[in-house]
C-alpha cells in the first residue's frame, strides 16, 4: 500500500486552475523528484499536501487515512515534514533554539510537545542533544548560538533542511533545498538526502530544477506543467521524453500534446496507484 497518495487533487484561484486533478502515489522508501517549469504548480502541490492550502477538490491520503480535514500542525504530527522554497525560519531566535523547537514539536518527552509550562526549557537535555546532532549533520554545529537573522543565505537554506530533519517525519518534502547554495554547501545537503534514501524507510519528495541532481538521486520523476501531471516514470526515459522538453523548453507542440496539459498521448501515462511494493 502506498504511504502517501493524492487523489484528483485540485485547487482553483478565481478562474485559474493552479493544480489540475493530480493523482499520484508515493511508495515508502523511494525518492520521487517533482520537476516542471516556473508556475507549473509544484510548490502549490506541496502546499495542498502539507495543508497550507485548502484543496478545491480531491484528497491527500497518508497510510490510507484521509488528511483533507486536518490542519497543517496535525498533518506534521501525523508524519508529513516539509522544508520551504522561500526560507522562513525564526529570525530573532538562535540556530539552536530554531532546531530545538522542531525537535520539541514532534518528539515525545516530559516537555509534552511544548505544552509544559512549569519545567525549565534548558533542563530538557535530550532536546539539546538531538538538536546538536542534527546541526552537526548539516555542518552548522559551530553556529548554534548565532541569531538566524544574521546567517548568510546558504546557512539559512541548511537550517531549513535541518528543521525538516528535526521533525523526523515519515514523508520528507524538500522544495529546491540547494537553491542559492554554493558549490561547497550543496553536496553536504545532497549527501544527507542520499543517506535518508538509503535507510529505505523514509518517503522523499524532492522539487528540483538541477537535472544532474535529479538523475543521480531520483528513483522516479513526475513532471508537472500548467498544474497537471504530464509525465511519470523512470528518470532516464522521462528526461529524454518530448514532454519534458516541451514542458521545459516551451517548444510549440509537435507531437499532439496540447499546451493546456491534457493527458500526454505517448506511453508515459501517469502510473496508476501500484498495488505491490517495488
Amino acid at each position, binding site marked *: 500500500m502506498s504511504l502517501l497518495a493524492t487523489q484528483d487533487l485540485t485547487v482553483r484561484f*478565481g*478562474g*485559474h486552475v493552479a493544480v489540475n486533478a493530480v493523482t499520484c502515489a508515493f511508495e515508502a522508501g523511494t525518492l520521487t523528484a517533482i520537476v516542471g*517549469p*516556473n*508556475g507549473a504548480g509544484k510548490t502549490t502541490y506541496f502546499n495542498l499536501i502539507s495543508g497550507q492550502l485548502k484543496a478545491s477538490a480531491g484528497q491527500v491520503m497518508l497510510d490510507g487515512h484521509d488528511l483533507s480535514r486536518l490542519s497543517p500542525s496535525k498533518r506534521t504530527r501525523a508524519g508529513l515534514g516539509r522544508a520551504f*522554497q522561500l*526560507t522562513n525560519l525564526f*529570525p530573532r531566535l538562535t540556530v539552536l533554539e530554531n532546531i530545538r523547537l522542531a525537535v520539541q514539536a514532534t518528539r515525545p518527552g516530559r516537555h509534552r510537545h511544548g505544552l509544559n509550562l512549569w519545567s525549565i526549557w534548558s533542563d530538557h537535555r535530550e532536546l539539546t542533544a538531538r538538536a546538536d546532532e542534527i546541526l552537526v549533520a548539516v555542518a552548522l554545529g559551530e553556529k548554534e548560538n548565532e541569531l538566524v*537573522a*544574521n*546567517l*548568510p*543565505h546558504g546557512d*539559512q537554506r541548511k537550517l531549513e533542511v535541518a528543521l525538516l530533519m528535526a521533525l523526523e517525519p515519515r514523508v520528507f518534502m524538500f522544495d*529546491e533545498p540547494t*537553491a*542559492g*547554495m*554554493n558549490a561547497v554547501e550543496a553536496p553536504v545537503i545532497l549527501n544527507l538526502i542520499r543517506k535518508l534514501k538509503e535507510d529505505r524507510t523514509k518517503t522523499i519528495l524532492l522539487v528540483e*530544477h*538541477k*537535472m*544532474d541532481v535529479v538523475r543521480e538521486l531520483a528513483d522516479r520523476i513526475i513532471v508537472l506543467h*500548467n498544474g497537471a501531471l504530464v509525465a511519470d516514470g523512470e528518470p532516464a526515459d522521462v528526461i529524454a521524453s518530448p514532454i519534458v522538453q516541451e514542458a*521545459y*523548453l*516551451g*517548444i*510549440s*507542440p509537435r507531437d499532439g500534446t496540447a*499546451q493546456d496539459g491534457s493527458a500526454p498521448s505517448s506511453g508515459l501515462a501517469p502510473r496508476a496507484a501500484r498495488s505491490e511494493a517495488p
Partner: protein
Amino acid sequence: MTADLLTLRGVHTHIGAYHILHGVDLSVPRGQLTMLLGRNGAGKTTTLRTIMGLWHASKGSISFDGRDITATPTPRIAGLNIAYVPENMGIFADLTVKENMLLAARQAKHAGQIDDERLKWIFSLFPAVEKFWNHPAGKLSGGQKQMLAVSRAIIEPRELLIIDEPSKGLAPVIINNMIDAFAQLKASGVTILLVEQNINFAKRLGDTVAVMDNGVVVHAGSMQALAEDEETQHSLLGLAI
C-alpha cells in the same frame, strides 16, 4: 552615445539579513533584446528590482544612458522612460483594464488623451485587453493579466522595457504575437531586458544573453553562440536546449 544603454558594475543587494546579489556585472546594448536566464533563486528578479530602485544596491553602480541611477528613487527611474513589468504583474485588481492603462500613460490626464494609433496596435497584439476594456482587471485570467501588464508597459514610447517572465501562462499564439511586438519595438530603437525561463522563447528572440547563478552573472555573450554551444548550456542551465 555609449554602446550600452544600461550597465551594472559589481552590484550587491541585501534584503534584510539576506545577501542576494554578490557583485552583478551586466551590460544591456542599446536597441537590442537581452535575455537574463538562470535557475530559481539565482537572483534574476532581485537584479531587476535593484535596477528599478525597489531594492537598493548596497555596493556597486548602475548607470542608464551614462547617468548613475544607483540611488535614484523608483518614480524618477520610471520617469527616465523605463517601463517595468514585475514577476507578479502588478495588476490593480479593483481598477478596470481602461483605468490600469490610463495610469500607465503618464502623459494622459483622461482616457481620451491616450494615443489612439498605439492603442489600436496594442489591441491587435492582445485582443483580451480590448475585450475586457471596462471590466475590473481582477476578473481576468492569469494569461489575460499578463497581456494587460505588457500592454501597460508599451502604452507610451519607452527607451527601455524590463519585463520579468513575459511568456508565463500565455498560449503559444499569444507568445507569437508578443514576439512580433518585441521585434517591432526593437526595430523602432527600444532596448529590452527580459527575464525568462522558457529557453526556446529566449532563443527565438534574444540578441545577447546573460546567465545568472548564485547572485552573479556567470556567462554573458551573444544568444546565437550560446544556442549552438550545447555543452555550456548544459552546465549553466542543467538542461540541453
